[in-house]
């Protein structure tokens, strides 16, 4: 067996960033749970969640400056030890997750105070940090089994977060998600187990190397199938999405915003890692029929939930169905198997996180000040809460993909990818799904802005400044990333180039 690598002569903080990114939220969660107090828990999570983006940005900067970072956890050198590996793709994702977490926590205190009883608030923040720890761990680790462990850490925290919703239906949603999520994770670990059996390694880079001669074997393909289905359950790929709408609809507002903008995105990232880095794009290219089936599912995901969304009475559930549809776009981009498509998929992952985060937080503001979640009751909110609904409109335009918003950029790449692949039916599907978004977003906008408020509706209580500020930061980002795309499309384009060209882990 291996011996630990030589201890570093001086322990530089900058060298330990990958570990810190996971350890800090984990310790924060423990501290928060020991404190058992909402206010103190909030303080801890606020500090931790603002430290995370600093670490993530520092790592992105390091990666840009000097290439991928490889970190041997506990000093055990890979491939036997667990390796944390940061490259362009996941540094980008880590920045996204950590910033979304920081913004959500900044938004949270009064929203949480209005939705969760005092004795549970400390636990809420602990769970939030645990979830953050799990998601960042999934994104940063380069070890197949470690991914599973972090997946379960984040999932368990998520079940708890969802179950804390005020409505009793939240409990059922959490339970159903628990069953489906566990099956998904177990499928994943099954697939990873098959790969481990044939390659004898769990390190993704190592696995990619050793898998090359074995790609034709049934075990390798079965492994990919299990992993895809498992992750498919986690990222709610149609038709494996049934857990998602209720979970998002009944979780506390802040939790919904955070989960919608990060949890499914990390799952997409894992899928991309396996399809492009571990197996290599050639495998997907060789299995045309299977790729076509995934594309077909992606199209169904874009269209069917969008139609369902149009008929939802609850605005949170409407947005949840829209999320399922947007995941369809992302998967479509990933499985177009060309650079433009993958760029579109990855950049939509980023843009959708911001857009959906903004929409769910705007709904959080509405729930806070009026308690309304039904669209019919939102009449006149445009006049009584113009700032909140203004942000909602901007983000809604982003969701539709109007030019000048973030959503447009990613849809452009997706359509370009489909055009380059000569798949015209996909172009048609993308634009058709965008048109459906016009309907479901338009419905809310029309009710809120062009209907008179019902006379018996009580005046909404004012939205606290930090909630409005965070919502508007995200709304402004929806527009900002429509014009300035160095981060939202430039980094994905670079990542796509590496993933498609390099085959093995970039």
């Amino acid at each position, binding site marked *: 067996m291996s011996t630990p690598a030589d201890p570093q002569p001086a322990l530089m903080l900058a060298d330990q960033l990958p570990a810190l990114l996971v350890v800090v939220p984990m310790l924060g969660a423990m501290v928060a749970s020991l404190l058992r107090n909402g206010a103190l828990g909030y303080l801890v999570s606020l500090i931790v969640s603002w430290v995370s983006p600093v670490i993530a940005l520092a790592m992105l900067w390091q990666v840009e400056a000097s290439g991928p970072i490889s970190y041997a956890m506990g000093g055990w050198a890979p491939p036997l030890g667990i390796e944390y590996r940061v490259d362009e793709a996941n540094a980008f994702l880590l920045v996204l997750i950590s910033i979304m977490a920081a913004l959500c926590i900044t938004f949270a205190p009064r929203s949480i105070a209005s939705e969760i009883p005092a004795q549970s608030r400390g636990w809420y923040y602990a769970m939030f940090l645990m979830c953050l720890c799990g998601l960042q761990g999934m994104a940063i680790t380069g070890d197949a089994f470690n991914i599973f462990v972090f997946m379960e850490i984040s999932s368990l925290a998520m079940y708890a977060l969802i179950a804390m919703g005020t409505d009793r239906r939240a409990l059922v949603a959490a339970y159903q998600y628990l069953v489906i999520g566990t099956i998904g994770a177990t499928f994943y670990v099954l697939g990873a187990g098959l790969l481990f059996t044939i390659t004898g390694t769990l390190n993704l880079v190592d696995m990619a190397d050793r898998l090359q001669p074995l790609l034709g074997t049934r075990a390798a393909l079965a492994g990919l199938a299990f992993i895809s289905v498992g992750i498919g359950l986690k990222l709610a790929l149609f038709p494996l999405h049934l857990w998602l709408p209720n979970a998002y609809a009944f979780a506390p507002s802040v939790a919904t915003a955070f989960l919608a903008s990060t949890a499914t995105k990390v799952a997409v990232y894992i899928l991309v890692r396996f399809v492009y880095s571990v197996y290599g794009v050639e495998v997907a290219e060789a299995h045309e029929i299977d790729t076509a089936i995934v594309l077909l599912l992606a199209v169904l995901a874009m269209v069917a939930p969008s139609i369902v969304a149009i008929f939802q009475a609850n605005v949170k559930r409407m947005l949840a169905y829209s999320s399922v549809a947007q995941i369809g776009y992302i998967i479509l981009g990933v499985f177009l198997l060309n650079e433009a498509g993958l*760029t579109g998929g990855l950049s939509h992952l980023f843009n959708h996180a911001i857009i959906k985060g903004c929409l769910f937080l705007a709904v959080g503001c509405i729930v806070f000040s009026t308690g309304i979640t039904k669209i019919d009751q939102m009449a006149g909110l445009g006049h009584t809460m113009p700032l909140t609904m203004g942000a909602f409109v901007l983000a809604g*335009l982003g969701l*539709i*993909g*109007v*030019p*000048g918003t973030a959503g447009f*950029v990613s*849809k*452009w*790449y997706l*359509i*370009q990818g489909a*055009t*380059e692949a000569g798949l015209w039916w996909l*172009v048609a599907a993308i*634009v*058709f799904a*965008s*048109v459906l978004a*016009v*309907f479901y977003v*338009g419905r809310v906008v*029309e009710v809120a*802005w*062009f*209907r*008179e408020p019902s006379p018996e509706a009580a005046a909404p209580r004012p939205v606290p400044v930090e909630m409005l500020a965070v919502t508007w930061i995200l709304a402004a980002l929806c527009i900002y990333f*429509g*014009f*300035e*795309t160095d981060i939202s*499309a*430039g980094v994905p*384009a670079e990542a796509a180039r590496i993933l498609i060209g390099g085959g093995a882990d970039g």
Partner: protein
Amino acid sequence: MDSTTLIWLTLAIPTLGAVGIWLADRFPNLREAVTLVTAVLLWGTVCHLLARVLRGERPGTEPIEIFGGIELALAIEPLGMLFATVASTLWIVNSIYSIGYMRGNNEPRQTPFYVCFAVALMSAMGVAFSENLFTLFLFYEILTLSTYPLVAHKGNEDARRNAGIYLVLLLVTSMGFLLPAIIWTAVASGTTSFADGGILASAGLSAGAATALMALYVFGIGKAAIMPVHFWLPAAMVAPTPVSALLHAVAVVKAGVFAVVKVVVYIFGLDYLQETGASQWAVYLAGFTVIAASLIALTHDNLKKRLAFSTVSQLSYVIMAAMVATPAAIIGATLHIAAHAVSKITLFFAAGSIYTAGHLTMISQLDGIGRRMPFTMGAFAIGALAMIGVPPTVTFLSKWFMLQGNVTADQWYALGVIALSTVLNTLYFLPIVYRAFWRAPPEPSAEHPAHGEGPLPSVIALSITGAGAIALFLYPDIVYRLAEAVAAAAGGTP
């Protein structure tokens, strides 16, 4: 000032104006003053640019890269200059008119109304000066979105439903067809920039693919209202009349046909179209629209509805001329953009004035109204003659060039369409004029009390545009020189 700054100013002035209007919410007089000052400043800037373009300059801004070769860039070519001049000039007149109309009818929510108007004009400028398809598309969509609240202005069930049709149809066509067309163009030719003589000739598309691409453009630019994507225009008539007048006779619809002509001239290029015949089918469809819309207009008793279908018909004149793809027809199409704008806005102004003064909306109610409202109906008569194309109105000139273009290209079908539609125009406009001047007015009743002219600002505005329709016939120099420059840029053989 250098031209680049001036171009940015054409966007900045209406934007700042919108902010100013919003800030002046509590003070109606100040608010309207801001609108007027903004309109005049914008007009001054555009005129400044016009003078330079007439000297042969083609100023443009530095492109700002958005992503992967897609740029936000503005540049002026003659066609866009013409559209910008028409829109900014008529905005001043329309602002004067709006003041009379909105106050005369005690309309609610006037501040958002003027704000949206300024934003719409900003996007019209952006459309006019767009240097590439992406920029065009960006401002095209802003124009759609900023006019949606104007259509829904009344806020009742009817207005909401029709505004919904408006928004959905325009967004669906632009997202569904125009965006794929733009991306297809970008993928095929490697650029989205407008260039003299077109950019597709070297892209290697087959004739069939070029035809399909043209179809995506023609249906994608829903604002041009070719059948069957014309439904939004009659639906938009629920809006207050100033909106119908400036936006749905000038800014929005002209942005549509302008975009079609721009695509024909600077994306396809006449040589390429003549070579592939990719636009021939569109000549037939536009011709059909001209006739069908005229026939539908005949059946409508509601004055604004009739005007709307007349607009659909007249827009297809422009599309048809563009699709014929000869230099003379392009001159005709360009002239008609300006000619129809000034004439149709007069008609809408008159309709609004009638509504403000007597709350009449139906043609059958207009017996003898010319005696009560001589200025209004006088201007209306000029507008009606212009729709038919009788000299001395400006549309005579544009029709002349369209006919010439059709003859040189042996497009006898298009020639026949114009002839037939002229007859139809006569049939649906002249009876209104006849009724207004030669029938006896009904006795005043409680429902329809006696009334005089409309509000003074409205009457001033419609007199100006009515006179404009004749003045442009007498002094077409500037417009014609721009149109000629467009045709020269388009290439093609006569």
